[in-house]
């Protein structure tokens, strides 16, 4: 079985260094990149499925600047087989429409049984790229997965989709595209052996020409949206520190809640 995992390098949310440059785009120099959190969960699931099947490949597919292999190595160190990076100067400033187009075009150059994506990214939290790729590729789309169970013999996949009031169990023929959540399980830490092995794993770089996309359709030129302004959020007020004994502290909480008409 072959699983493609869409992984996006994002500024590390824990770094605190994320900021925009003068052009309103991410200032990557100040934001160390990590693999998007949700993408790590689906990657972990892909690795487990391949391990359980005893055969197959996990292929990372990333659209990002030329520095991306640094981040992709972290995912390769977890155990992914190889990486495919779509990188082209013309892609700078791409929006979600262009991202979905590029990923769908790159997918058409690969053969696979399943494509996994995260439900959203920590930097933009759009949550629209995976359904976009599915629509463009014309593949069954199964979203918000809490479980993923492929049946290799029947060539079908079952997903438990998280809904507002429980789960929908979805079933589709493979190949299919699945967006997944943290409910799939905790991602592993790369082992030392994994980190060593990742150094020599293959990362293939594709240009826009390689996937047949016009430069003018993507990047800043093709963008359908633009950032027009940005500012720091209004700071929260001062923190009231309460060090009294529990009974007194409880009264202080109740007083605050009553003052603010919460109770």
């Amino acid at each position, binding site marked *: 079985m072959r699983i493609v995992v869409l992984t996006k390098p994002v500024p590390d*949310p*824990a770094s605190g260094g*994320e*900021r925009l440059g003068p052009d309103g785009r991410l200032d990557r120099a100040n934001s160390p990149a990590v693999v998007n*959190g949700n993408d790590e969960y689906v990657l972990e699931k892909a690795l487990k499925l391949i391990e359980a099947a005893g055969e197959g490949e996990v292929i990372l597919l990333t659209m990002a600047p030329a520095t991306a292999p640094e981040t992709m190595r972290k995912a390769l160190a977890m155990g992914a087989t190889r990486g495919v990076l779509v990188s082209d100067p013309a892609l700078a400033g791409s929006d*979600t*429409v262009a991202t*979905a*187009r590029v990923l769908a075009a790159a997918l058409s150059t690969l053969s696979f049984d399943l494509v996994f994506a995260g*439900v959203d990214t*920590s930097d*933009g*939290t*759009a*949550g*629209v*790229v*995976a*359904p*976009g*790729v599915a*629509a463009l590729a*014309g*593949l069954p*789309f*199964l*979203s918000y997965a809490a479980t993923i169970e492929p049946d290799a013999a029947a060539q079908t996949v079952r997903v438990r989709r*998280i*809904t*507002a009031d*429980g*789960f*929908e*169990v*979805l*079933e*589709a023929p493979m190949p299919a595209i699945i967006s997944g959540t*943290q409910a799939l399980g905790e991602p592993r830490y790369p082992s030392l052996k994994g980190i060593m092995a990742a150094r020599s794993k293959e990362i293939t770089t594709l240009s826009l020409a390689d996937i047949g996309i016009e430069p003018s359709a993507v990047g800043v030129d093709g963008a*359908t949206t*633009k*950032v*027009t*302004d*940005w*500012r720091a*959020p209004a700071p929260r007020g001062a*923190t009231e*520190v*309460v*060090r009294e*004994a*529990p*009974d007194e*502290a409880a*009264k202080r*909480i109740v007083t605050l*809640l009553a003052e*603010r008409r*919460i*109770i």
Partner: protein
Amino acid sequence: MAGIWVHGEIARDGSLTKLSTEAATLARSIAADGAREVTGVVIGAEPAAAAEALAEFVPRVLALTEPMTADHAAGMIVAQRLATLVAERQPDVILIGAGPEGRDLAGALSALTGLGVLANATAVRATSDGPVATHSVFGGKLITESALVSGNGIITVRPNSVTAEPAGTAGSVEVVAAAGDLAQPAVPIVERLPAESKAASIDDARIIVAGGRGVGGPEGFGLISDLAAALGGAVGATRAAVDSGWIPYSQQIGQTGKIVKPQLYLAMGISGAIQHKVGMQTASTIVAVNRDPDAPIADFADMIVIGDLVEVGQALLAELRARSG
């Protein structure tokens, strides 16, 4: 000008979702200059009830019956029907709720129509060049404003960003027919399963009492539930508590859980890690109970009680119960 559209999402029981009433209120506010019409669109196996409900918010609602959504994943199907309506009637802007269903719909609709998406708007205002959306990005570290280059496109609206207000006069519902085949593969729903717990949903909760690793175990969540019950709120949790199996993932707040905006967030034994903070920092009032005065949550809570969460929690429970008599 064809104006502003708002998608009316149908809940499992056939009603209109709260998020759609918020998006509809927002749609009206950006059309307030009167130059644009506001139209609701409801698509599903039984759209009537949700369409009537949406008509309380906007002057005109299109209701399209699509039987397939009864037992197939809805997002892709609704997107195709909506894409056809959009191609025929050319609205300027389409507002869609930024919940799971709305994101699936918006992503597919964007790909099918080529329209751009301003994602997760917390506010939208009208300008002469089209709508400008406000977003909270990088986990709330930055507020950005963005626009649609052509003035046309899709805007997804973050839950709890707007207070829903009916229009005062009810609008009309127009039944429209589905046209054309559904080209995308439909994914059958083979079974529906109930949630793992009966815990109240945190999505729209006015009050959330959340527990973290400091709660210590599943039994510890008993006190958290009691406090939530006494306050009329829902129980939330950190990933640490969810990963430990003390409480289901549906209650998790944060980067890879839910983003909430309650009036009160009572954080019990929660350090306030950035990945948690991003899910709750816009709560109106944040009260933390933590034995560590240097926990990061001390930097953004309105009040932090330094102490043991069981002792303070029990005292608070007694106080709340005494108050309510």
